[in-house]
């Protein structure tokens, strides 16, 4: 898909496009970004993709999302790419960086973990350096291989 045709399909005056999301995770990505109430969001599911076969796209109008926000989607879509749009032009293109820790955005599934018993902000540390993030609860120390399932 050329850049021109891409702009035709996803024409956006100003804002952020999250591209190359594995299908069908666009809705989950919107949830993780926490932008549901931040103006117009366009969700595209099952677009053809040369690289991925199928992909989802999320378009957030008028908001330039910072890396601190977009990196949150690393748990479900580490392959996603971020395009920041201004005057219909891509002014910044970046990849997802997988954070080394996650505070407050995941829930520990261990019912006997102190985070489920006391008023404590959850805290997970990324284990290892692989492209598939594995996380460990700082409190009960359990390791989880599917951290996307822990998103609150």
């Amino acid at each position, binding site marked *: 898909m050329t850049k021109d045709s891409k702009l035709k399909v996803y024409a956006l005056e100003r804002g952020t496009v999250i591209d190359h999301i594995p299908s069908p995770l666009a809705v989950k990505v919107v949830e993780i970004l926490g932008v549901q109430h931040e103006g117009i969001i366009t969700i595209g599911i099952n677009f053809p993709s040369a690289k991925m076969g199928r992909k989802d796209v999320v378009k957030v109008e008028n908001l330039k999302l910072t890396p601190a926000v977009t990196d949150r989607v690393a748990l479900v879509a580490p392959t996603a790419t971020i395009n920041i749009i201004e005057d219909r032009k891509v002014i910044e293109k970046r990849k997802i960086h997988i954070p080394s820790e996650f505070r407050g955005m995941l829930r520990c599934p261990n019912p*006997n*973990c*102190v985070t489920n018993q*006391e008023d404590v902000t959850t805290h997970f540390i990324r284990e290892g350096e692989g492209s598939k993030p594995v996380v460990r609860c*700082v409190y*009960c*120390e359990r*390791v989880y291989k599917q951290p996307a399932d822990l998103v609150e």
Partner: protein
Amino acid sequence: MDLKGRSIVSIRDFPKSDIQAIVNKALEVKSGKWAGALEGKVLATLFFEPSTRTRLSFEGAMVSMGGRVIGFADPNVSSAKKGESLSDTIRTVTGYCDVIVMRHNIEGAARLASQVSSVPVINAGDGANQHPTQTFLDLVTIQEEFGQLEGLKVGMLGDLKYGRTVHSLCRALSSFNTKFSFISPPSLRMPDYTTERLRDSGTPYVEVGDIGELKEPLDVLYVTRIQKERFADFQEYERVAGAYRIGPESLEVLGEKVRVMHPLPRVDEIVEDLDATPNAVYFRQAHNGIPTRQALLGLVTGTIQ
């Protein structure tokens, strides 16, 4: 290594150099070097879950080095029963003592306590998670028996799935070029996350179902209890438990020099006939809890350097 003011929550928090330094310090304490070092210090023992032997070991350690002890051994008398949060209990108690030893049935409770406490917190067990002073006393015993922690052949036998002590000891020893043998029934194997970590770090290990399958003698055999409640069928438990019982005849396979360790209490997984042999070190191991805990109490309060 400067541990003054630091909490002892998990063996995971300590690099190899700190582990070795703590073990060495515990043996210094055992030799009598730091007598009276805890004089004037107050320990609060907060046992939200009963554990008589661990509590007595900490209290004995504190008192015999000149310190004093306050605290509770029965969670029913603590303010947690009235609905107070753990954080508030800890914030209050920090005003009464120089160091806290805490046992709790909730995993991560010690980590949370260490974050809100202004004095060091020593974890005396948080649910199925960590019990780091047990690991340190295990290491002290191995160091005492062999003069080093490096390059030993260590077997772990029994319940390797749920056994908190073997997981922590395995983590600590894996930094010391240990060659592991895991001996357990298939249903109680070492968890995958432990063996995966060993593979990733290039630590050699074998998994067998019976000591008869071991290819070479061991330096250490660490025995754990297989608990009845892990089996739905009592006859199955009896059959399995019988196959993992160690006695004097086991030494033919394990090697005449093997040291047999156990975190205690044992039920019948080590027969009493073994107690009188030089291979049985489990009671010395339990007694090493005193100098090990004294060293840790002294290091975190700054009275031992």
